[in-house]
């Protein structure tokens, strides 16, 4: 279905993704720092935190 999008939406959307890549590289200082977690809900934030602490314990 992605091929059915209007040219306008596709170009803007891909530009948005390109900005996202540049922003990610900047946020992680060229992937030297960990990628920040996005938690779309409160519960996800808890799960992510639990995972990170269990990884740190290993």
């Amino acid at each position, binding site marked *: *279905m*992605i091929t*059915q*999008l*209007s040219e*306008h*939406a*596709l170009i*803007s*959307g891909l530009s*948005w*993704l390109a900005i*996202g*890549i540049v*922003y*990610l590289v900047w*946020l992680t200082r060229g*992937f030297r720092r*960990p*990628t*920040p*977690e*996005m*938690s*779309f*809900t*409160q*519960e*996800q*934030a808890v*799960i992510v935190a639990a995972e990170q602490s269990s990884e740190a314990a290993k």
Partner: protein
Amino acid sequence: MLLTALSYARLARIYPVSGSAYFYARRNLGSAAGFLVGWAILLDYLFLPMVAWLAQSILLNAQFPAVPIWLWMLINAGLTTAINVIGIALADRLNRLLLAVSTFLVLLFFAYCIRFLAGNPVASYSAPFWNSNSTVAGISAAAAIAAYSFLGFDAVTTLAEETKDAARNIPRAIIWIVSIGGVIFFVVAYVMQLVHPGDIFDDAQAASYAMSVQVGGQFFADWTNLAGIIAGSASCLAVQLSSSRLLFIMGRDGVLPRRLFGKLNGRTRTPVFCVLVTGGMRFLGMDMPLETATGFINFGAFTAFTAVNLCVIVYYLRNYATGQLSAVRFVVMPLVAPS
């Protein structure tokens, strides 16, 4: 769409925890890919309130042509922004009330259509499916726009933690939501096509208003339109609320600048800056056709859906050795779903 929903259902069974496309992508495709999926979803959340206000303003303009669309945009967006700044309790209460009103209105409109059909002979019962004007390209393009109606079914996965026996009930709920929603859209659209065959309207963007006049008369149309517009504010309120909340959470997580986005106002306990940013999106949409605006949302949605389907395949490949997963359900269906 149903196939994408099945992919969601499959993953919700595997991870019986709250989640969405981003969460699935981060777990299965890695943190950088997950970030980009989240970034694409962010575009949706930024444009969703704008589309809601725009649709609302087009309807208001059809009813009161003296006030131009851009001014209605300012009024609508100003009101919902103010309510969302004041607080979540007020927004939630208004939202429930308005949702009940709009459900009632759909039923009423449907009843009037049936009454109209009883008194007027129908030209063709099959024409709504296929007629001399139908083209494959036209139908595919329409399907991409219609998919907008299905956005949001994934929100149910965020309730996983509060659900009894989530591993069983969440996937069921997703399938039920898509099926019930699909049946409602289909039946209403079919009846509307019987009443008014084809796609020729004086003003296609305000087609439902013209049809209300046709089936129920001017008086019925004016009142239901007005009530419908007021009820429609419910979706404006709700989408702005969830968009602002997402920006706030991203600010708190350090994805967006924390000092601006990650703060609650001390008095109202609402993320005022985030609400204002989503409110500011209205200025982008002042002169935008509705189709362009929904196109942006479809981009983000399809990126997310594609990622979900990809996750299912990756999960299958990683767990191939166990030999317990069905190749048709985990590989073929996700591959077919986005096309």
